[in-house]
């Protein structure tokens, strides 16, 4: 698709964006209320309470249906620019999520999040480095899979591959593995969470640690509990997410350094060999995280009003729309046929590492994290 400039670009966004907004409107106004009333297996609201088919999961499902059924596997040119704004919506939503905390609350939960995330991120990275070598995967792909299974899925794969000289077509297979695994966990986690009677705190901590892709962490937390407020699953899950996001540059640096120490220099690009942590940090640090902390600072200073204020109420209502619209777009980037073609060693390594992380995280959370929320 050719790049458009100025007003033409804005106009190009409208059709796709209108589809995303219109879809969410229909889901929230008609579909979700109907599902809440529908009697299935003799239980009113079974679809929402048991399957967690609230407007969040419905948004993603609608996006998936658009792409795979109505669009025939490719977002059409008329809608592409609009659907691409999904990134902007989710990013803005994450920044606004910062308003759910105060600095004191972040400090309280942050230390547990840092401990858990560090253990699981680096534990997974080292496991993949070991297991990938054991199954005979080439060093570049071990690096990419280590980063994507360890931290933030797609972003980490993309951030790591130039430094380790990974073949782009293989990176595509790695991304498909991560996304496929993430989608599966996104749909089953709320069900597991409810079956095990996890609290919002435990659930947020679990999926924030165990699910591979950050967007899917948010969606899963909101599927479990669609409320935007302090003490909900999304409020806890996002703290875990932010800690993970911040760790991307460090993971990229460690993996690239590891790849460059290989006897075969093929797995090390020239840029990789000259890599410095400060440079990696500057290039890979997601700036929008500063916006998240900015919102937390404003909340701490009371600039957004007290709990229950109109400002906060409006902000949370806007957040629910922003995430819903963004998630319709996220769904439209999921091509089931592409995911089904994931295979080979990346699939094997991704499934083993992903499942291990997901299950061990659940066990650790159930054993060591109390049901009572810290805030």
């Amino acid at each position: 698709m050719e790049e458009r400039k100025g007003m033409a670009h804005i106009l190009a966004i409208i059709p796709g964006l209108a589809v995303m907004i219109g879809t969410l409107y229909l889901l929230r106004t008609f579909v979700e209320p109907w599902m809440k009333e529908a009697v299935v297996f003799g239980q009113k609201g079974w679809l929402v309470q048991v399957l967690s088919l609230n407007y969040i999961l419905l948004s993603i499902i609608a996006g998936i249906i658009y792409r795979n059924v109505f669009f025939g596997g490719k977002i059409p040119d008329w809608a592409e620019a609009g659907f691409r704004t999904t990134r902007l919506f989710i990013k803005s939503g994450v920044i606004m999520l910062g308003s759910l905390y105060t600095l004191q609350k972040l400090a309280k939960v942050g230390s547990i999040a840092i401990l858990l995330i560090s253990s699981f991120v680096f534990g997974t990275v080292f496991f993949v480095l070991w297991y990938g070598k054991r199954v005979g995967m080439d060093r570049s792909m071990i690096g990419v899979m280590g980063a994507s299974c360890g931290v933030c899925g797609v972003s980490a794969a993309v951030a790591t591959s130039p430094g380790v000289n990974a073949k782009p077509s293989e990176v595509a297979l790695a991304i498909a593995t991560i996304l496929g695994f993430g989608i599966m966990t996104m749909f089953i986690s709320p069900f597991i969470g409810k079956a095990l009677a996890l609290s919002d705190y435990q659930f947020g901590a679990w999926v924030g640690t165990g699910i591979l892709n950050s967007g899917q962490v948010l969606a899963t937390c909101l599927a479990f509990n669609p409320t935007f407020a302090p003490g909900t699953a999304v409020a806890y899950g996002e703290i875990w997410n932010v800690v993970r996001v911040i760790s991307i540059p460090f993971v990229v640096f460690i993996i690239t350094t590891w790849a460059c120490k290989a006897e075969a220099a093929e797995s090390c690009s020239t840029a990789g060999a000259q890599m410095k942590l400060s440079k990696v940090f500057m290039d890979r640090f997601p700036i929008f995280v500063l916006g998240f902390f900015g919102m937390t600072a404003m909340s701490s200073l009371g600039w957004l009003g007290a709990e229950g204020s109109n400002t906060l109420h409006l902000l949370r209502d806007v957040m629910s729309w922003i995430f819903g619209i963004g998630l319709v777009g996220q769904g439209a980037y999921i091509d089931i046929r592409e995911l089904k073609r994931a295979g080979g060693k990346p699939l094997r390594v991704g499934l083993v590492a992903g499942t291990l992380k997901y299950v061990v995280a659940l066990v650790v959370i159930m054993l060591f994290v109390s049901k009572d929320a810290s805030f």
Partner: protein
Amino acid sequence: MKILLALDDTARAVDEALRLASEKGASLTALFVLDTGWSVYIGSDFLLGSTARSKFLEYTRDDELSQEQASLAAFRRQAEAAGVAFDIKTASGGRIAKEIIMEAAQGYDLLVMAAPFRRGLEVMRDAPSAILKAATCDVLFVRGGE
């Protein structure tokens, strides 16, 4: 007779196209399509900063260009050795299959390509099925093996 060869990593497709062109005295055109679909493929990822995103896209573009050079050089060498008259074309697009279909509609009698087709993001897609449905000329799929 005009034969179009869609280039990927599969050496057997080149061998087969050269053999057919030589046997039938046909003209042979080799087509290499640069995959520009990466920007869309990673389009939904919200965590990537613009620097990391543009570095990756630069990296994929460089990789595509080096594959183009290697692939065309190998084809040229083989075609010259086989004494077959040939022509080379390059195209670029976000969907390689679509570019091949468009070129194949330009009066070719036969399209030769590998199945599975291993170029760029087509490793995730099924180019042979898409081409079989839409091609306006005969198509010969060459098994590339795993």
